[in-house]
């Protein structure tokens, strides 16, 4: 695979929180329409890395970044690049389900509304489509105008996925999307991910190695802010090249 094939590509990415360096010289490429999993022990920088892809670290004070991240061969950290435009193309689902304290409908329609869509029919359409894509439509279609806070954890997380789908991004970043959910809800989300891959590129951070093995096509193993190994999931799990990776996979530490 050449660099042209990669949808997102980082080049010697370094990141500091204040004085503390969190990422060291990360260089990797993400292929389109695949699920890429980032795994590694707590504090290894996988969440930090995924938040770089849609410039979510901009929100955090004292965060400094060097190196480059290309999306469609366009540098998203160039001074005149607009983080808002980046985030319209690269959506994100967070660790804890974070629906807004609004109705279900409002939650899904929010992204379209902030981009200036006011036509009610159009919004209705977007809401229905996004909820269907997130496999939530049947459960909530009768109570669209009730508060999203009344949904269960798994439903809330699928609502957040619907919310990020509503603006038709190309990439969906998922930061440990199942860590707050029970096994049944997790299974539903995993099914959903496999379906999403047809239309979207998915990057998922996960703690759960079985999950990475189950759903992802590619896996990156990170340790102490460094990218240790990156390759096809099968190869990483069955035949890791690096000793550190092997130790982690086999559960000898982590």
């Amino acid at each position: 695979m050449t660099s042209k094939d990669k949808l997102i590509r980082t080049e010697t990415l370094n990141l500091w929180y204040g004085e503390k360096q969190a990422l060291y010289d990360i260089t990797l490429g993400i292929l389109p329409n695949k699920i890429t999993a980032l795994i590694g022990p707590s504090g290894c920088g996988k969440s930090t890395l995924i938040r770089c892809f849609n410039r979510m670290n901009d929100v955090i004070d004292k965060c400094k970044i060097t190196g480059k991240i290309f999306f469609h061969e366009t540098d998203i950290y160039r001074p005149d690049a607009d983080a808002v435009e980046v985030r319209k193309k690269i959506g994100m689902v967070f660790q804890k389900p974070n629906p807004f304290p609004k109705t279900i409908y409002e939650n899904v329609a929010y992204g379209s509304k902030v981009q200036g869509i006011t036509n009610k029919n159009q919004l209705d359409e977007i809401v229905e489509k996004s909820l269907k894509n997130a496999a939530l439509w049947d459960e909530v279609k009768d109570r669209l105008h009730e508060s999203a806070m009344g949904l269960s954890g798994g439903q809330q997380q699928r609502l957040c996925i619907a919310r990020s789908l509503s603006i038709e991004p190309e990439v969906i970043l998922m930061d440990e999307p199942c860590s707050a959910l029970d096994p049944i809800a997790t299974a539903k989300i995993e099914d959903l991910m496999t379906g999403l891959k047809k239309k979207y590129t998915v990057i998922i951070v996960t703690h759960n190695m079985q999950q990475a093995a189950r759903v992802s096509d590619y896996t990156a193993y990170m340790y102490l802010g460094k990218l240790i190994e990156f390759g096809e999931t099968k190869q990483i799990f069955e035949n890791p090249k690096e000793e550190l990776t092997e130790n982690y996979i086999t559960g000898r530490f982590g």
Partner: protein
Amino acid sequence: MITIYQQKEKQKAGMMIISIIVILALSTIWFSGCVQQQGQSGEAIVLIGRDSTSGTREFFWTYVMGKANFSASLLEKNSNGAVQQTVAQTPGAIGYVGLGYVDSTVKALKINNISANVQNVLAGTYPISRDLYMFTKGNATGPAKEFILYLQSTEGQAIVTQEGFVPLQNTAHYNTSGKTLSGTLTISGSTTVLPIADKAATSFKILYPGLTITVTGGGSGAGISAVSQGTADIGMSSRDLQTSEQGKGLVKYIIGKDGIAIIVNPQNTYAEGLTLAQLKSIYLGDITNWKDLSK
């Protein structure tokens, strides 16, 4: 190629800023238009008076107003000093204060063509004057008695004169005759009498070093109620007892006289003097503009 880089939108921003400025300007013009209707500030009469429990006000109300109600636009101040200060700050203001409060920051008007000064009050020609009182519960005894005697003496009356009030006639010198006083003496009440009592207390303490004296304002009503409740030894007042205050065993001592000066702002060029009738019309609210005085 995707478009994530910012486009130039300066032109639109400029338009927006211009329109905001125009809107702000328009509203400023409109607002100042509204304000202009208020008219020339120095011409409208601003009535300043004392609060409803002041002895000065009660005297003024009885004597000048004939117990007719003040105009509703009378602004109340809770001391003579406040009245004087407000008149000094406000071009169109008129107020009434004790003679002692007249200084260069305000202009005292002639009343019925008589200047407001001590001589004219003494001579009985200045029309608005009244007595100043000290009240005690029962006949004064101990430090209270000595203090009142001191005030009524030549020495005390010198302070009365110094403070710009009108002294009593035919007074004698005060004689300590070897007396010593100790304990405390609490004096409170009328803000008109306050400067006299404050000064007298200072020199009285030189005569009797063992004595602690507290002098406080609050107004005639406060002083009278304090002395009748026993929280003060002497109550100062610029008015006589009201019906509700009688029958509580209070004894009255006159310690001087006071003229009520009618003061205006020094910038006021419309009036040098008023008749009592004019004064009444002003405080009734019948005359509301200095220009109307000459009519």
